[in-house]
């Protein structure tokens, strides 16, 4: 459904994206993960036809997102990363405008009313008076109410409280069941973990890897926090073969995949004062995997 093929966009400040390629088949929720400035928003803007790539091509349903951008927007719901709206309009004015611009079908008005309730948003308020969270809800309603085949969401849960994050996750699952293809960017692992089937990690404009979430979860990394009793024990741990992820004073963070016999063997030869096993988190798995 979505094809990114050797996409490159260079900005004068050296940022941008470099030779990015991946595909998102129909019905998949794909997470685009990376720190701020990694190139996530640039990729989404190219998919929306807002900016033109220096090289490569982006396609949705086989159509070039630049050359056929106006036609493609009939099937796309978009949430921009930075939400700015016309300040003198009310939230409802904006939603009505977008409904009319998408043809004004009664189903859109119906969807809008339901989403307004689910997000618990008073849309009669002027947009200029709304908080960041309210604006985010307004943006999400505008993207989801279209019942679009493709959803492109840039940092969708930014500014949402935990209750609304759950509403968002439910909506993503419902849209996926209906067959929607969703590409969402985020720098939050938890959000991606709960909603996506696959994740692409991007850093400095380069796609480091594309992995299935289930595979990442299956990488049995276990993380332990160990406190050496004294400097002598700390030196012993440092010089051992243990895979030490980080050290702060007498505290060591050890991340081990698979067999734990080495850990037990080392610990039996020295003195430790505290020992904790951490719950396995996707973030740990991911960072370990690509370390």
């Amino acid at each position, binding site marked *: 459904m979505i094809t990114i093929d050797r996409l490159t966009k260079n900005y004068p400040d050296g940022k941008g994206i470099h030779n990015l390629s991946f595909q998102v088949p129909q019905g998949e929720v794909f997470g685009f993960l990376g720190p701020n400035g990694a190139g996530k928003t640039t990729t989404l*803007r190219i998919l929306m036809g*807002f900016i033109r790539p220096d090289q490569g091509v982006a396609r949705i349903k086989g159509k070039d997102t630049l050359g056929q951008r106006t036609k493609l927007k009939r099937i796309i719901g978009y949430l921009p990363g930075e939400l700015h709206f*016309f300040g003198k309009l009310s939230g409802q004015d904006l939603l009505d405008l977008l409904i009319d*611009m998408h043809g004004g079908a009664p189903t859109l008005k119906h969807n809008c009313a339901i989403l307004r309730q689910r997000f618990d948003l008073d849309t009669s308020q002027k947009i200029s008076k709304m908080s960041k969270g309210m604006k985010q809800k307004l943006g999400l309603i505008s993207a989801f109410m279209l019942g679009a085949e493709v959803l492109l969401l840039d940092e969708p849960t930014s500014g949402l409280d935990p209750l609304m994050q759950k509403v968002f996750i439910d909506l993503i699952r419902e849209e996926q069941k209906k067959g929607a293809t969703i590409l969402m960017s985020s720098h939050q692992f938890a959000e991606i973990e709960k909603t996506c089937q696959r994740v692409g990690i991007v850093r400095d404009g380069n796609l480091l890897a594309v992995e299935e979430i289930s595979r990442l979860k299956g990488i049995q990394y276990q993380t332990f926090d160990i406190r050496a009793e004294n400097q002598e024990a700390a030196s012993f741990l440092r010089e051992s073969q243990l895979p030490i992820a980080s050290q702060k004073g007498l505290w060591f963070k050890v991340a081990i995949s698979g067999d734990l016999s080495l850990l037990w063997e080392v610990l039996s030869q020295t003195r430790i004062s505290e020992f904790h096993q951490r719950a396995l988190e996707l973030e740990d798995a991911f960072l370990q995997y690509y370390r």
Partner: protein
Amino acid sequence: MFISRPFFRAMFKEQRGNLLKISGAFVLYETLLSWVYPAIAKTPAVGEIVDTIPAAVKTVFGVSPHARTDSFEAFFSSQFLARIWTLIMAAYGIMTANALVAQLVEDGSLALPLSAPLSRSKLIITQAALLFVNNAILIGVTLGGVFLGTSLFRISINKVSYLKLSLLSLSFFTAIGSYAFLFAASGSKEKSLAYAYGLTALFYGLDVVAGLWDKLNWAGTLSLFHLLKPQDVLEGTVNPAGPIKGLTTSAAVLLGVAIRIFEKRDLPL
């Protein structure tokens, strides 16, 4: 349709506050001028004072050196239409063109409208249509204000001349709006404002300089402002048909270039 009607309505709602404020100020000022004119017309000393004003000073205030000074048209042009009104209308066109394009691109407000199946050309034509309709409303209000004031205070005017001036003004401010649109469609908010104001100030300066020194008369022909001489049109000494055609054609060409640039450029939305 060349424009998006829902988007036009929404943007008109955004802009109507400014439109109302300026319209109100125009009508008030015109009524005030119509109120004081009969008293001034009855005082011969005022006419004598005006006659003693040097031609150069008259030029700065937009009055032709050899124009009459004893008519309502002369009074109304020098006190309002020739400079104050023209400059306010020009500034309104530049600011509105900037607010409708460059500012919305820069602050990201166009992201959602452009996520709908609306082409960029249709969007910018809608915005241009909104500016031109707003100009037409302000010119109509100005016309209405002068008709109201002269009717209230029983001043006789040639209404057809005022209608001709309105048409000329509409094409004049459409041309200014079009180059402001061209700058707004091409660059950042600050730069496009600076370029549009800079070019207008240059035109204005050339017009003033040409009136101050005979040797620099040629400079006036380079200025857009030499095409809009309200008093000459109101007194029927100039036929505005030629300038109307020229200004309208220029506006269409400038807008065409603005659409093409806006279609091609990257939008950080």
